[in-house]
């Protein structure tokens, strides 16, 4: 009787410690999960729409990468652009994508090699529709809805 009681009591004591660590592990896991999902949530609202990389080359953006667009987005090789394209054929500031009056617009920013929309080089500010393909330097991009 005495022995059974002692064994049981120790089981309870060890159980307490085990539970304490179980709680700790779960709390850490919850913290970790929340940090990851909240990070994803923080990214989402920053893009009104996306430019999805279609064609690329080594050193450029990954194929299929979604580049978020804000109301005005500058594209180019320079680090000061909102979307930086690591491509020798792209100019320092290549083109500007903007959203106004409920429409997407694209404008060449005086680039050397020009901005091409759906196979045609643009000479002025042009409308962009979802699904349109642009070429900036050697990189192909497609406008997609958020």
């Amino acid at each position: 009787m005495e022995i059974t009681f002692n064994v049981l009591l120790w089981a309870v004591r060890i159980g307490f410690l085990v539970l304490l660590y179980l709680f700790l592990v779960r709390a850490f896991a919850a913290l970790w999960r929340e940090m990851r999902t909240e990070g994803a949530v923080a990214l989402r609202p920053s893009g009104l729409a996306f430019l999805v990389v279609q064609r690329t080359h080594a050193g450029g953006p990954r194929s299929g990468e979604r580049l978020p667009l804000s109301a005005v987005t500058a594209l180019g090789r320079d680090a000061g652009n909102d979307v930086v394209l690591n491509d020798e054929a792209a100019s320092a500031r290549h083109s500007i994508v903007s959203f106004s009056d409920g429409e997407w617009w694209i404008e060449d920013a005086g680039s050397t090699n020009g901005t091409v929309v759906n196979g045609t080089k643009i000479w002025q500010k042009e409308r962009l529709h979802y699904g349109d393909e642009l070429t900036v330097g050697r990189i192909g991009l497609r406008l997609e809805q958020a």
Partner: protein
Amino acid sequence: MIRTRAAPRFAELRLLVIVAALLVLGYVAVVASAVATFSATPVVVPVTFLALSVGLHLFLVARGTRGDQLLLPLALALTAIGLIEVQRLAPERLALQQLTWCCIAAVAFVAAMLVPRDLSVLSRYKYTWALLGFALLISPLIPGLGREINGARIWIGLGGLFQFQPSEAVKILLVIFFAGYLDEHREMISSSPKRFGPIPVPPLPYLLPIVLMWGIAMIVMVFEKDLGATLLFFGIFLAMLYVATGEAFYTLIGALMLIAGGIVAYQVFGHVQARVDTWLAPFDEELRFGSSFQLVQGLFAFANGGLLGAGLGNGMPERIPIVWSDFVFAAFTEETGFLGGLALLSLYLVFVFRGMLIALRAPTTFLQLLAAGLSFIVAFQTLVIVAGNAKLIPLTGVTLPFVSYGGSSLVTNFLLTALLIRVSDITARVRGGP
């Protein structure tokens, strides 16, 4: 706060199930060790605690509270450990008193979730809160109202029964005031301060509160003989100043001022001298069974614990005087060992880390500073008392948050948790996240 439909909080619920099991096991171990058999009689404490946990969880669900689901389970886990320890260590009537305080703390938590409906009231009336805090701080010095217990004049008593430690509530009021004040003067952060060589000269809006706060900290140390509160108030203030300005130099000035004040106080005042002496040489012939007896017994308790501990209810923590308030960490570590102590500290780590994350993500500067300051309260207090127990710094009488026996402290910590959850709720609504 926008009223919304009830929203489930499954992560919180899952954690609370573990907390409930934790309390029951710990409680059974402690009670069974005391009476040497398993008995079903003392069910009041576990049942009440479980009811409180479920009640608070359902309240948050019914309110549609979004955001953090970690803080409530953490706070309740620590409170559960506190209840187990009080049952283990303190005289019988204190356990029931602590349970009563748990209920009051739960009510305070609910109240703080509801009032004020808009948290900006806190920043708008910041000087009112500061004044209220100062009044509370000096209230124990009023003859007739103040009480001196265990050498510190930090209590106010009403009648013979009710005692309250106002410095606990002052901590939250101070954080609210600092957050509002530093937020109001935040434009000065971006403008670089004038410099004499490498030394930045703080603009007056920063210099003034540093000096004022230092003065208040010194008053607390000298007249109320409360070294722990001195360290806490000033530490919280310096941490928030650093968060707001990013200027480490202000913190350095503040720390130097505190050290200078401490050295002068050591020379002049007996109670400061006694604390430092017992810290430096607790095993001294004259002090061993005198003023350092508590500290020495605490150190023996740590040593007795070892890696796995003596087993909950099986140690000898009752040999430490007043173990249930100041030395609860030593007692817990003796009976659950290094593993238990480590887990307890990790719980605080997760709590503070969570608080800091809430601060980082909060949408306004005021809410950021508020959440950071509230997290600092828990961090500093844990650090000061655990380091004091372990003879790393001179022992000062602050409570181990949620765990130590003590009503004012428990209520304050639940208020603090409620405010953190509200900040995270606001953040979740602004961001449109979960």
